[in-house]
């Protein structure tokens, strides 16, 4: 009996209270930092930002100004070739043209040669996806299941290597640079390799394994627009032909905009060109293969140096300067309002 009557009291004590924990989290009393915008923090942040941006901006503009760049549009200068190419029956005939230009002063340092295309929408969705990375990795894959269509196989079933629209439309002009030095023409030595990303060249693009390249690509056919099969892209250099050809790799890296440039060659800094390109007359000799007139495109060849902040585009510097100015101005505006309101506030309080 005694036990029984004691039981409920134990029960009562054992019964957990439904009282919530008095913990900082549950009571929403976690220690917290409450940033508050007041005149001091606001003004200092504006002025500091402004000062920083202006400094960086000026540096950037200065450095961008030190970039030397020459850009030559050769789609007009080679209009004959352009017309020649419009006739598709001439697809396998060669057409050459040359473009002269003069360097007023030396271009010092590493000089990069780019080809530029205008109005070529490499970023078109259906174009962009028309490739097979697996194939480019050298794997023996069934490219039927890739996105290469309709540049997957020929009608007879021969697979295209490399497949897809990107590869098919590869830029295939060859541009050589000649230095007219004292009426003797010296070909500027240009580096074909080392222009692409190291990872692309060594990881992302691989030739199929075989004892030689032609056998590796046996049973495949070149893309329809190409003049030669992929393993003959660079006949001189075993390590720069097939899928791992630098020009090919660079082309396969699809450009972000319709107007773009791709690195084509680097000036090899030997002999006359050890310091870069000396001033003087130069000639581009171009084997004109890539038709651009049908999409109202243009082709350029560009010689440029680079600096730490990128190329010749001064925009980043300008943007910094503009932002810096805006921030500083905002700081001044706030100061002005502050001064004005302080008077008014006393007015309010008096009232």
């Amino acid at each position, binding site marked *: *009996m005694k036990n029984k009557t004691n039981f*409920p009291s134990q029960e009562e004590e054992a019964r957990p209270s439904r009282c919530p924990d008095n913990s900082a989290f549950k009571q929403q009393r*976690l*220690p917290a930092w409450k*940033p508050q*915008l007041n005149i001091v923090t606001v003004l200092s942040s504006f002025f500091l930002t402004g000062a920083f941006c202006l400094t960086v901006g000026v540096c950037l503009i200065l450095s961008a100004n030190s970039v030397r760049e020459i850009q030559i549009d050769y789609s007009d200068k080679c209009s004959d070739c352009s017309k020649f190419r419009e006739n598709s029956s001439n697809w396998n005939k060669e057409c050459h043209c040359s473009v002269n230009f003069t360097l007023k002063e030396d271009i010092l340092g590493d000089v990069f040669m780019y080809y530029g295309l205008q109005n070529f929408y490499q970023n078109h969705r259906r174009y962009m996806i028309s490739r097979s990375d697996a194939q480019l990795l050298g794997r023996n894959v069934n490219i039927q299941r890739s996105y290469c269509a309709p540049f997957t196989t020929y009608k007879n079933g021969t697979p295209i290597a490399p497949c897809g629209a990107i590869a098919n*439309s590869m830029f295939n002009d060859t541009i050589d640079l000649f230095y007219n030095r004292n009426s003797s023409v010296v070909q500027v030595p240009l580096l074909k390799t080392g222009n692409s990303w190291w990872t692309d060249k060594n990881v992302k693009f691989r030739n199929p394994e075989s004892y030689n390249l032609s056998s590796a690509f046996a049973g495949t056919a070149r893309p329809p627009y190409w003049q030669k099969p992929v393993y003959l892209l660079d006949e001189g250099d075993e390590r720069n032909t097939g899928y791992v050809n630098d020009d090919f790799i660079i082309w396969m890296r699809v450009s972000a*905009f319709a107007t773009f440039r791709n690195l084509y060659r680097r000036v090899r800094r030997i002999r006359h060109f050890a310091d870069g390109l000396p001033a003087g007359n130069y000639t581009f000799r171009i084997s004109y293969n890539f038709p651009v007139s049908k999409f109202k495109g243009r082709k350029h060849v560009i010689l440029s140096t680079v600096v730490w902040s990128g*190329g010749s585009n001064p925009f980043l510097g300008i943007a910094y300067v503009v932002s810096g100015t805006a921030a500083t101005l905002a700081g001044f505006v706030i100061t002005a309002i502050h001064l004005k309101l302080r008077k008014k506030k006393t007015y309010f309080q008096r009232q």
Partner: protein
Amino acid sequence: MAFSVDSAWYRWQRLGAPSQAPSEPTPLLLPGRDNPKLSLNKWRIIFPSTGRQWKDWKQASTFYSGNGVQTTKYTWFTFVPQNLFEQFHRLGNLYFFFLVVLSWFPQVEIFHRGVTLLPLVVVLLPSMIKDAVEDYRKHQYDKTINSSKTRVYDKEERAYVERCWKDVRVGDFVQLQCNETIPADILLLHSSDQSGICHLETANLDGETNLKQRRVVRGLPGQNALFEPEFFQSTITCEMPNNNLNKFQGYMEQPNDERVGFNIESLLLRGCTIRNTEVAVGIVIYAGHETKAMLNNNGPRYKRSRIERRMNVDIFLCVGLLFVMCLIGAVGHGIWTGTFSEHPPYDVPDEYGNFLSPALAGFYTFLTMIILLQTLIPISLYVSIELVKLGQVFLIHNDIDLYDEAADLPIQCRALNIAEDLGQIQYIFSDKTGTLTENKMVFRRCTVDGIEFSHQENAKRLETHKELDLDDEDFPKLQHFTLPPPTLGRAAGAQQSPPGALRRCQSARARVQGHARSRSLGRRDSSQSQVAFSSTIEKDVTPDSRLLRRVREAALQTESLSPFIPTRTSTAFADFFLALAICNTVLVSTATEPRQRVTIPPPIKPPGITLEKIHQIFQRLKLASLSQSFSSSQSSSELGASFGARGPEEPLPALGSGDSSDRGDRGDSSDRRDSGDSTDMGPASLEEMLQSVSSSSLPPALCYEAESPDEAALVHAAQAYSFSLVSRTPERVTVRLPQGTLLTFDILHTLGFDSVRKRMSVVVRHPLTKEIVVYTKGADSVIMDLLEDSAGAEKRMKRIKEKTQKHLDLYARDGLRTLCIAKKVLNEDDFQKWANFRREAEAAIENREELLMETAQHLETKLTLLGATGIEDRLQDGVPDTIVALREAGIQIWVLTGDKQETAVNIAYSCKLLDQRDTVFTINTENKETCESLLDLTLEEVRKSYEWDKPRRKIFGIIPTAPEAPEAPSTEFGLVIDGKTLSLIFQGGLQEKFVSLARRCRSVLCCRSTPLQKGMVVRLLRGQLRVMTLAIGDGANDVSMIQAADVGIGISGQEGMQAVMASDFAIARFKHLKKLLLVHGHWCYSRLAKMVIYFFYKNVSYVNLLFWYQFFCGFSGSTMIDYWQMIFFNLFFTSVPPILFGVLDKDVSAETLLGLPELYRNGQNSEIYNLSTFIITMLDAFYQSLICFFVPYLVYKDSDIDVFSFGNPINTISLLTILLHQALEMKTWTLSQLVAMMCSLGFYLVFSLIYNAVCLLCNPPTNPYWILERQLSEPTFYLLCLLTPPAALLPRFFISALRGTFGSSLILKAQQIDKLPKGQRDLEIQKLRSRKATSGASPAPNDDLDQSISHLCVSPFLHPAAAAVSQGHTEGQGLSSSAVNPLRRGTPEEGYCFYNRWAEEESAATDSSAGPFAPSRGTAPGQGSGQVPKDRDSRSNSGSHRRSVSPVTL
């Protein structure tokens, strides 16, 4: 949600079932035996599974569902398809599905198919798993339920055999033991209880733990014999299964064609538990899913919050935006494609070498763009909102300030998805009783026979209680000390109880302890058990000495059966207290075993308690013959049978004899009482409590369980005057008189209380005089009309009536609840006649309700007034404070109560709902036209004053912190309206006028309103003003308004659980509303609103990046960002910080929010999330996306950048911008938020680095290999990341800096205050508030303007001082103050009833309606003063047009 679907499903199934039934040939219905109008689809016919009708039963039972239940939605095979099907009912999921389907078309395929599938999977899978687990649990539960055992009568074995629940069929006989759960809806045919009673506990059904009585079908022959199912031959006809828990009717057709009716009183509901009844036998009526419990099984309610509604609109705006964007893309692409005369090499033909026509290409682009820009529709928002709301509700639930220690109840959040609505409430509709007040009824005063007894001592006692309650904080300490003694006390108590006979009942112990402990624990206990159970404060009533003396005298006369006819007065006193003790439905139980109803006088106690012993011996001697039958009645059946024969003469011989011997006993008992009193009067010390413990265990402490607390209060009051209710059965009730005599009345009838009649009656046979007496107790307004015609009655009665009325009005003015007690003596013939009517009515099948009502009304006429009581219902603590704060927060508070007007008005004053300076309009009328013109006039009046102060407000409106809404209610009007007028308004289409008047009033009181009206008022306001409403209440009568309101709050208090069950949030005290709304409401709103808007911003700004790119890729649908990174951006990189923000951010601290309730207006006016903020945010998002896209674009323009190398910095920049934007929005930085921020960024970098390093081929045709790594090695990337986010956020930062520094919004001010140290903060808040008060007062002055109306309708409660002040300040407004003053001085009281009086005149002559108004508006003072006597005349002429107003007219 799942639940509701279930029930809907079964309802549907059920719908299907009856449609088959009529088409069946029904051989089971023999045409001769059945009423032709009865058809199976209207009535259910049940044949017993035994006896001759076994065959019929066999056939019939095939129609009715078995008792097995299946609440699961799915089976193993149907789970996946069915679940998917259901999930696709959600629009968002369908949208995803659409996208997935789209992406299967190669023409528009943009992402890898898996990528599009991912969001769908992420959304579907968790809910699928949740559903599966839930369903499995249900399945398990069903299994245990279905296989639990019960005892069913078996025909072959002729005995009850154990069967599973699922095997029980309609028509089976089921035997139930005590504490057993009822397996189906069962018609009670037999109970072991002598009187055929069976007790139910319905806790499983509605959470109420008090016992409910069920009785065996009346008129069933052989009720007390052992019930043999074998011989039960009747056919039962009853209504089709429905979900009404309170209504059920049918009849039983016996073999001899006699019909016996029954109703809900005899139905045992599935899921309830049998209590206090040994054995009950019944026949199954409804089984399985057709039971009322199952049909009532609606799942949790789903409400949509205001923010969500707003959000859905904005989502449609986003859909529009998406459409426009896609259209731009489609058209752009079409045109772009069309510009080429020849297909360029980058225009790739399809598989077969065909080129698309520009139009088709455009169309495909359109679809592609939908996929591309899909995240513009922030589906992730839905998931995030669910999570955030869960978090918010979790925090609300865990708030220790919303925890009621006394009841051990934290706030219950029953609706998970409307927490933010708490921050937008504009109107609060509150119940009065139990919500504003404690609903702890304390007997305060009474008037008997026209004499008022003020009970001064009692009032004093209550005062001390009030003080004691303030020391409540101490009681947990005391609790520890007091615990051991009660244990001992209980041990003694347990010994006292007769062994064996009593069953242990579940909550008995807890209650004993609670009562033994202390008075403050009494409250705790009562609310814990959710029963209207009295605490000590209600139990102890200190009798008024004057009254006590009189009562004793009267009782003496009554008891001694003195030969001379007792004087009228003395019987009145005795009758009054008899009525208090008898006229109720209170259940009596002893303190030791509260659940065991006392049906017999307490048996002999063991030695040790001498007083008791002596008492018992006397009793025993006295009731020698009676006690025999009584005490043995429980076990012995044959004696019980004789007992059931109901001999009215039986108790008589014993009574009245032991008069002299009772003296000593009486003295003892009063001594005992005195000692009890003294303990109560003393301070709440430990000693005192111990003492009260020991003393309370001495008497046969009777506990009263009443349905409503006022009943208990009255019984306790009667007990205080030694008229204690000792036992009650449906047949008889025993009362102990002051002398100790036990008087047993036969109850001939009980007419229960209902809200229409507003009264209850018992018909008893007086054991001494053998008179048949009707005791009626009810609302004064009703009872007063039912008294004997004053013409016929003697003059004295008339006087008593008048006096009583006066007292009643006095009580009402003091805020007491009044009840009138009346009686009526019937002669035998009349009663027999009436009883026959009644029986017929009870047996009636159709419109029984009306018949019952009619008979009840027939009986309750020509009553004799005995007296009236005033019961105090104390205000809950913190109510005035809460109301003031809520009002400051801009919330309008209405009180909707069923109580009488005066009481309500008084409570309103005492809880500061109405101010003494307020002008109170009272509209009581019974005529529609009157009502209309009244409304018009009042409205006009209010408008006038409203316009008057409007220009002034503008002058002072320079203070930009208080942008008063144009429709802000003027602060100086109160409106009181009663239920009748309300119904006129609703019937007469005057809603608009009413609303436009009410919205301008500071507070509105609706008195005498029915539950339905409460709901209608809420709905009206919601519909007409489109405001956010909150309804708070504690009782079943508040359910309709709780359900009608946007937010329903239930107070888990004394009146059962219905309100809580219907509510969205359940709190324990009214004062919790303050923090709930002002703090949690504000937080939840601002958090969620900010989060929602942030999500819109986030999606738009991110998706726009992709859109801008379309202008540079010929609208072909390309992306510069890798798909996986894009999808992950929303799913992972930027999802956690906003969710944490939505749960944790505090813009202002809780203390400041409570200190400055005005801050609440922020949410009320939807200042954070409305169309303009949405648009501004959208514009900001556009701007930011422009910056984030075009800065990198211009930087990388004409370079050799490739697509994904271009996209990578954009993605990074945009992530930084979005996170920094969040940082700008965040007002509090806790560690978790900081960590989440950092983790988001870190996760992005780590994921991208790994993904870019590893993923060589995993996502053809795109290939992000080594891009981020390459980018990280270039300074341009860092320069961009440094520049762009600040540039993008510059405008926002600038503006928020401006606002933060110079802005004067209250929120900002509060944030500044928050940063101050504590003491200084309080000081600042005070300063702000006082400034508010002065600036607020000036536009709404309490001087001239206020007074200009006050002469019109001055509240009768106007404080004299206030009145005096007000008169002094009156300034001319077309009328000089001196001219008005004389008039006004005379009319403070008249003003109150002005409208009433006017209304009366109105009904006579509508034309003159403007008459009374014009003079009082202030023309000539002479005219006005002349008006007064005329008013008086008209008033007296029309009699008491409204009784409730009459106090003022006197």
